[in-house]
């Protein structure tokens, strides 16, 4: 059994207070093993971002604790790199400067040349060298997300957190980037946590998939192990029996959840008893007078 790198222990998290309070996460228990690629899938608004923000340290749990290497997470740290859903690049900085912002912060003791090389290496890794001096506004969505990937990876994090990193991209770019992220991941075998709403993406990339039951009061569902050998080829995966099996299992689990939550929410409304008026069946006083 490999070491556990991060852990959720009975975590509760909600927002607001009093009558406005909504409980988002309830009793989350999760262990992330070192070197694995874990995917968490769930519906929009089910608390996925809250979950990942607890790991980045941007949020603190209300109850329970989030541990990283055995110690509770107090705040953001360089050992946990984040790729945000909406890229979060600084628009006034070029690609190089955006990555440099992270590198300068993580390796303040390196010489200028070392840092420069490091930055160029990671920009090259995501195939953006030609756009080194461009600003985010001049890049396409896919390219921007790749900058975000380069920025997160350049910090050499022990745990890479991805919050729906490809959610805003079109299907083609998405497929492309999935392959690229996987390639980079398998090259340095970091622990990775992917949050996504796309089951196929989760199965393609991860070793394990855990569905998040929809919030409020979201909890984690049972885990599904994906026993498909790497490297996985997206084009052939569709015919892979194991892939099909896991996909069906996860999908039907999520579908049932969705139906269940719909059932819970459905209310019956009492409609007033209306009678239709047919033309010619009713006479008006003023018409009589005329």
């Amino acid at each position, binding site marked *: 059994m490999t070491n556990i790198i991060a852990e959720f222990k009975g975590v509760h998290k909600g927002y607001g207070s009093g009558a406005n309070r909504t409980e988002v996460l309830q009793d989350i228990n999760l262990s992330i093993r070192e070197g694995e690629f874990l995917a968490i899938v769930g519906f929009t608004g089910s608390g996925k971002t809250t979950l990942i923000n607890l790991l*980045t340290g*941007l949020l603190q749990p209300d109850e329970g604790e989030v541990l990283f290497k055995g110690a509770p997470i107090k*705040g*953001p*740290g*360089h050992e946990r790199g*984040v790729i*945000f859903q*909406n890229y*979060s690049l*600084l*628009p*006034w*900085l070029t690609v190089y400067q955006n990555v440099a*912002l*992270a590198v300068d*912060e*993580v390796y303040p003791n390196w010489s200028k040349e070392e840092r420069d090389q490091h930055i160029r290496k990671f920009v090259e890794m*995501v*195939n*953006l060298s*030609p*756009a080194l001096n*461009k*600003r985010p*506004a*001049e890049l*396409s969505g*896919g*390219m921007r997300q*790749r900058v975000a990937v380069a920025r997160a990876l350049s*910090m050499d994090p022990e745990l890479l957190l991805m919050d729906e990193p490809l959610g805003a991209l079109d*299907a*083609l*770019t*998405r*497929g*492309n980037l999935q392959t690229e992220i996987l390639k980079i991941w398998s090259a340095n075998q970091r622990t990775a946590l992917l949050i996504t709403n796309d089951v*196929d993406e989760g199965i393609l990339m991860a070793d394990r998939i855990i569905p998040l039951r929809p919030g409020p009061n979201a909890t984690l569902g049972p885990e599904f192990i994906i026993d498909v050998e790497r490297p996985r080829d*997206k*084009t052939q995966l*569709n015919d892979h029996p194991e892939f099909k099996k896991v996909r069906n299992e996860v*999908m039907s689990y999520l579908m049932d959840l969705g139906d269940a939550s719909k059932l819970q929410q459905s209310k019956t409304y009492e409609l007033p008893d209306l009678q239709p008026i047919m033309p010619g069946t009713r006479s008006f006083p003023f018409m009589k007078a005329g």
Partner: protein
Amino acid sequence: MKDNSMVAIKQPIHKNGTSPKKEVKPAATVSDKDPWWKSYVPRIDGKLLLKKSLVSLASILVFLLAWHLGAAKLYDIEATEKVQKVLNEQGEVAAREMIDCISSGEVSCQPNTLPSPYQVFIAAENLLKDHREISSKKAEFRQKVAATNADRKAQGLSPITYTGRPSFLDQILTSIKTVLAGFLLSMFIAIPIGIITGLNQNLRMAFNWLIQIFKPVSPVVWLLLVFMIVKTVIRDPEMDKSFIISFISVGLCAMWATLVNTSVGVSSVQKDYINVAKVLQLNVGKKIFKVIIPSSIPLIFTGLRITVSVAWMVLIAIELLAQSPGLGSFVWEEFQNGANDSNAKIIVAMFVIGVIGFLLDRIMVFVQHSVSFDKARIA
């Protein structure tokens, strides 16, 4: 439905030319060929330019015509009244003399009213001629006192300077100098305070009442306030007190737009950027200078642009009161003067004020455009 999307991805993506290098290319070719300044110069479309210039030319002509007709009408009314008055008070002979006097174009009996465009043009010419005369006088004077000044400098005395009447162009320069000094002052006061109040909600609340109360105060009151203080603080007769008073008042009047905009810009930085700063664990200084200030630059410059136009507008009123030599006092003096071409000169000053105000605004737009990452937000 899900299966369909999988089929779409199944097609060979890599061979279809979405490789990253190709994605970059179109943008690269555009900006690599052009020199850096190209993006600042609007592309010229001949047809549109012709159309635009024809339309503006036509509108200028219509404006001048309306002005000319209006001025002629006012002249008629004023002249008739004048003759009528003479007729009532001094009789028919005097009235007839007055009519002759007016139609002969004699200066002393011209009715005092809105000058026609032609008169304004002549007044502008005269002002320029006047400027040439004064500058030649100045040069002459400088030559004359050159030797004496060198002596005085050797003795450690201050040199003799020309103290004659300033020309119109000198007054324009003084005005521009004053407005720039006032603008710099307001920038140095408003931006730091704006940033500090933007960063801290308590400070923002503490400053808010002050801003709300002082923002609408009239330039005249600011001038008097500054006058009270400067008068006591600066006792050195060598210093140009009226200049100091007017530029400080201009600065105080105009700084509010920048102050409020900076404060709003700093306090409303996008949450994403703050999260980036947090995740990268930037320290406070880096967070402010690398994330917060750059992201509020568009709003700060919008504020500065408003400040420049307010400063220029307020300057005229302040100069008028502070007796600081400039366009404002020029207008006031001409109004008090009441010479036959005074009105025309006032109109000349009006146009000069307008044009300079417009140019200042354009300069600010240019600066704003070149420092801002967010080009779309600049009108």
